[in-house]
């Protein structure tokens, strides 16, 4: 027993460290944690305080009723305006237009949904971009390739 002093010291040190961790953890746990479930309850209110950036699905229809109506009867009906353009709050403040809305004419926008992928459900029309554009191999895809033929009316009402 008399030659185990170091082992007792180590055990004591270990207990001290564990106590420190357990007590220290207590102070690190956020205040409202666990109040209404296993999460920080205050996070809810911090999020509720934020201005919404997206509009409701028909938010654009108030002012762009012609385009909204065209889109609703076309195949892009399930695609939100904000997916192809930008969030409502980048365009409208207090019910009025205050900045231009982004118009994305880049082919990558369309490719995001229409590029042929084996893993993509067949109910979405897919094209092999290079084949569809009849590009020679090595030829770069022009930035605004798709809108040359699929013009804005066709895009809003495909």
């Amino acid at each position, binding site marked *: 027993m008399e*030659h185990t002093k*170091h082992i007792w010291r180590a055990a004591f040190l270990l207990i001290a460290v564990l106590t420190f961790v357990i007590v220290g953890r207590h102070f690190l746990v956020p205040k409202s944690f666990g109040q209404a479930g*296993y999460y920080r309850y205050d996070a809810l209110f911090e999020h509720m305080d934020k201005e919404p950036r997206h509009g409701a699905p028909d938010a654009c229809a108030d002012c762009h009723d012609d385009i909204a109506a065209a889109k609703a009867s076309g195949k892009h009906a399930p695609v939100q305006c904000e997916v192809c353009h930008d969030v409502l709050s980048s365009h409208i403040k207090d019910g009025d237009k205050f900045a231009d809305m982004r118009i994305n004419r880049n082919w990558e926008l369309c490719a995001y949904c229409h590029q042929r992928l084996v*893993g993509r459900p067949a109910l979405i029309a897919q094209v092999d971009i290079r084949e569809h554009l009849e590009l020679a191999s090595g030829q770069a895809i022009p930035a605004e390739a798709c809108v040359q033929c699929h013009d804005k009316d066709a895009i809003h009402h495909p």
Partner: protein
Amino acid sequence: MHAQSLNFLFPNDVHIMWSLMIVLYPYITGLVAGAFIVGSLYHVFGRTELKPVSRLAMVASLSFLLVATLPLLAHLGHPERALNIVITPHFTSAMSAFGMIYAMYLILVVLEIWLLFRKEIIELAQRSTGLKRAILKMVALGVYDISEEARRADHRVVKVLAALGIPAACILHGYVGFMFGSVKANAFWSTPLMPIIFLFSAVTSGIAMIIILYETLSAVNGRKISGDCLQSLAGYLWLFATVTVTLEILEIVSLSYAQDEEWLIVGPLIRDKIAFSFIGIQMVFGSLIPFILLGIVVTLKRYLTAGMRNVITFIAALILLIQVFSMRWNVVIGGQIFSKSGIGFRENYIPELGTREGVAAALCIFLIPFLIMGAFNRLLPLAVEDGDAKAGSH
């Protein structure tokens, strides 16, 4: 198609999210567990011929353990939030269980190494001066007792710690396999065999790594390699590699024999998509060749010179390290190449070079444990002195 909102999630299931770092992570934790098991063969099961690597194995285990979380942190978008899982762990979360297992295992290994090196720490403290001496004295917890009785007490505690460490090491790594095995949606991962396969390949990689470290360390120090030790390691490596590969094959064979619907996607995955890394590297190059090489070392040992045995074992160990890495790669990347719906495949994954999750970062992370071991060896030699043998309890 209904005119419902597609919202902002469409389309998903296109990218391979778990990158090279997620391949590296189970590889490194596997080395942690495997190296520890090698150490325990001596400390718990009294395989005295493994004494020359008993310290090396423990320090290797610790060195890999210290970097085990780095690949995950490099992969996370918000690495600074990683501690949340430790501060507010949820007991139903396997990920947060990892935090606790990791901490427990770290304590065990540090304690065990401290006891193993206590004599050397004290001797070093007595030889040095100034600040170094003060620090080393603190590390020795102020007790300079290296009498027979104290050493015997050390050995008893080491034995208990090592015995506790075996389940801890197995859980630490079994957990990694469990993480993959519990992804229900993934036909290639979702099997209860996953933790077991991971565990066995971890031990394989651990033994292989210790062989390589031992031979390298001996060459650097100009010491003789212990024939008994290497012969025994080669035998264990052969055994564990064989079990590992058998399990890996059994898993695929049962999938293919049952011909469930998941085979419709896993079959083409193995045949076409990961044929090179699975059949080529993991099965033929990585398993068959070491099986033959180690078979020669184990069964024909009478006809081999010591030099030949060392070289053959070294090569087999190196190949098995590659095999285990390719197994991790095939599980992690292969499991993501096909769509979870089983409808088809994605683009193949090629890791970038210079990004946060790229090849260069992975190599840097993998280098750190060796630097730690080198620094440790400089301070406290990893090689076990022969004169020490009688102080051992075995």
